[in-house]
């Protein structure tokens, strides 16, 4: 499945629009990671645990979005957007949404 955040896909034409698809997730890290982040806040530097948290949440949200697109019979998602929201400290909600379409290579 082709997933892009542009409105069109170079080299393909959109033959059918299947509608908006979405996926979201709220994830948190275990308390140990939060405590480690508290210490990191004294000395600065990358919070690997929270970077991981964003990566995992984003993957899960995109997977859910792709599953929905598959169910609609689409073979691509265009114009994908992400938003995040604050639910509580140390947790992240990630919401991915895009338009499910059917792509085809144009006749040469």
């Amino acid at each position, binding site marked *: 499945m082709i997933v892009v955040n542009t409105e069109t896909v170079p080299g393909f034409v959109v033959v059918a629009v299947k509608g908006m698809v979405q996926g979201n997730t709220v994830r948190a890290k275990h308390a140990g990671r939060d405590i480690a982040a508290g210490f990191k806040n004294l000395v600065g530097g990358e919070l690997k645990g929270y970077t991981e948290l964003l*990566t995992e949440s984003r993957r899960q949200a995109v997977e859910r979005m792709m599953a929905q697109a598959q169910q609609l019979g689409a073979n691509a998602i265009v114009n994908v957007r992400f938003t*995040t929201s604050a639910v509580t400290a140390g947790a992240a909600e990630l919401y991915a949404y895009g338009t499910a379409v059917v792509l085809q290579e144009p006749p040469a």
Partner: protein
Amino acid sequence: MENAIGILLTIGSLVFMLGLGYFVGGWRERSHIQDLDRRESGNGDFVITQVKTAMDVSVNGPPPTLLIGEAVIASDYLKTFLASLRNLFGGEVRSYRTLMERARREALQRIVEQARQAGYNAVCNVRMQAADVGGSNVAGKKAMVMAAILVSATAYRREG
């Protein structure tokens, strides 16, 4: 007497944590920026644009794909302290500006590295977004200061 020891301990721990921020935090920031400079100088002719439509697309390249990069960078104690001082007098919070810049550059560079590894030589439609992992927008909780950036872009093969 007991009071004096208490005051001394309070001041001592404050000075210790400020020193930790100044020395360890400063060193970590410098080495991170050096690391970013080094990695970015190796990008060569990789093209980053934020226009919606890909330009100069190669016809026989791999299909374009969505790439996402994340980076969460923590503030140190000194930065947080300086920012709270700045909050009294107003003006530019310089210590946080470098923090945001590092997070953005790091997240974008991760996208560039992913793209190059997958055989692409350009990205378009770069979108940057701040996430609130530290809980600054959550009422009734003392937030941790950090810059959490989520960058998304479409990677494609460019002609020439």
